[in-house]
């Protein structure tokens, strides 16, 4: 165990030593405001109600001396989801119109920092505002995938709720587990035969035998049988793979077959003198990302295209970022293909960039200002290989050639080794909620 920990720590150190500039992934950012600010916030607040939003804004922006802009702050707010609508899963998956989709999928983001570095030394305040939405166009494959998963889940649920409803009265009747079993067995068998007609006689008998053996050790007590009933029903659900069906459907909903178009816009408001009376809008970004996930023989494959357009205020950058060249317009366009093979995944990205700007070049004889148009183009290609070492640990390696950075145009090779850890969520005890929610 110690050796494993040492290796993991060594890899983390190795990554930090070799770390290069962060790569901008080829997709619409989850939080456009954070992205346009170049912020990697430690946490993004996602209030689910207007009260929570008010509390988040008040506690972060109001200080002893009035309004202050917090450092490393990011917030994402989706108004539609602040209220309950009683949507069925079908209503949720298949919105009736594009307008309805826009209502549901639109979210607003805010990000702030006090550490926007100007001229490599001066920290300044900046706020970014963003909006993001998504449109999904389901196809026949998606309908089939949803229907087949839902059908399996429904069969599982009918069995569990049906058996639960039938055996509950016996669980609260005086007697032993054997009495309970004698009354319950035929109901369980009956539901299995109706909902799972493909089970053979032998498989059904084995199911019942295993359940009986397990049930004997569940502490049957007819005077207080909630715990027994929960364990007994869970045992049935487990044997019918209820958790697996749930996980598969949940996973599918996050990554459906068909076409998805993500659209986002964000702008940056800079306060270079840290004075609210003086602000500049130096940068705006627009992302449009269509993504298509294939089915059948190619269901491991997802293809994304991206169009990102950025506007820069060149006067601002010339004034506050000396010795760097910024174009007034940047257009990134590219394609990405992602292949998932169980624990292993590969992503290939190809992005082109076209930049242009008009630069003052003196005046003519009538003293009218003259400009010359400059343009540039660049190309980035990256291959990323990821492997899930365990459910919590992911190892990735990226190799390729990036756009020329503005600060060091010779440094374009990418070779990034990454190790991502996922730790368990805090428990109710950690959060001090036991007194409110129980153990």
């Amino acid at each position, binding site marked *: 165990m110690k050796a494993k920990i040492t290796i993991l720590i060594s890899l983390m150190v190795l990554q930090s030593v070799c770390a290069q500039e962060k790569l901008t992934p080829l997709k619409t950012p989850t939080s456009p405001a954070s992205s346009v600010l170049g912020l990697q916030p430690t946490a993004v607040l996602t209030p*689910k109600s207007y009260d929570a939003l008010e509390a988040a804004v008040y506690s972060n922006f109001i200080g002893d001396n009035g309004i202050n802009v917090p450092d490393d702050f990011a917030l994402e707010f*989706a108004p539609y*989801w602040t209220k*309950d*609508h*009683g*949507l*069925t*899963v079908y209503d*949720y998956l298949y919105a009736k119109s594009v307008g309805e989709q826009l209502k549901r999928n639109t979210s607003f983001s805010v990000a702030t920092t006090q550490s926007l570095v100007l001229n490599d030394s001066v920290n300044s305040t900046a706020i970014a505002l963003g909006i993001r939405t998504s449109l999904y166009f389901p196809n026949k494959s998606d309908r089939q995938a949803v229907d087949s998963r*839902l059908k399996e*889940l*429904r069969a*599982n*649920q*009918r069995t*569990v*709720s*049906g058996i*639960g*409803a*039938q055996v*509950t*009265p016996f669980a609260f009747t005086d007697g032993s587990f054997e009495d309970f079993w004698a009354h319950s067995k035929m*109901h369980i068998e*009956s539901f299995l035969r109706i909902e799972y007609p493909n089970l053979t006689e032998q498989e059904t008998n084995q199911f019942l035998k295993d359940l009986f053996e397990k049930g004997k050790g569940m502490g049957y007590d007819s005077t207080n049988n*909630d715990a027994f*009933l*929960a*364990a007994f*029903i*869970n045992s049935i*659900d487990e044997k019918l793979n*209820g*958790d697996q069906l*749930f996980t598969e*459907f*949940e996973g599918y*909903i*996050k990554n459906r077959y068909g076409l998805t178009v993500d659209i986002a816009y964000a702008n940056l408001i800079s306060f270079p003198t840290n004075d609210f009376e003086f602000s500049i809008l130096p940068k705006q970004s627009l992302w449009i990302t269509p993504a298509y996930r294939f089915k059948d023989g190619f269901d491991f494959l997802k293809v994304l295209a991206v169009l990102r357009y950025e506007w820069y205020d060149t006067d601002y950058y010339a004034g506050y970022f000396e010795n760097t060249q910024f174009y007034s317009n940047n257009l990134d366009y590219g394609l990405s293909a992602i292949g998932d093979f169980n624990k292993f995944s590969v992503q290939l990205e190809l992005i082109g960039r076209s930049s242009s700007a008009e630069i003052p070049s003196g005046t003519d004889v009538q003293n009218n200002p003259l400009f010359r148009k400059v343009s540039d183009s660049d190309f980035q290609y990256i291959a990323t290989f990821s492997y899930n070492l365990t459910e919590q640990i992911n190892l990735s390696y990226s190799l390729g050639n990036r756009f020329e950075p503005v600060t060091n145009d010779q440094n374009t090779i990418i070779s990034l080794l990454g190790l991502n850890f996922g730790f368990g*969520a805090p428990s109710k005890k950690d959060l001090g909620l036991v007194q409110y*929610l129980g153990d």
Partner: protein
Amino acid sequence: MRKLYSYKDLAVSVADETEVTFSVELVSDGNIISTTINIPKLPPEEDPVIEDAGSASIGKAKDLRGDATVVFSDIINLIPQEDTIEIHYKVNGELVLAHKNLKSEEVRPLVLLLIKFVE
């Protein structure tokens, strides 16, 4: 292990000749539910099943006296935007139980209601 939310002391007052309708209403979004109502005097194959939301007639009140009527729901919620599961159970339009739990506590709750129909 999935958590069982057990509500065993529910009582509803209904006159003998009144037809009783049991309803399930989705309050929070994206729930998938199967609810079976075990009516003591009916054989299991005639017990109503409500998928997601809806109503079922469970007979006249005088036929529901005595043993408790058992309602058992298997609920799941798999949409990422929702953090709460909330379901309302009603008898003849009147709320009998509002079940609510955070998904962080249980994303696949089992809900048990034992309802006595009294005069």
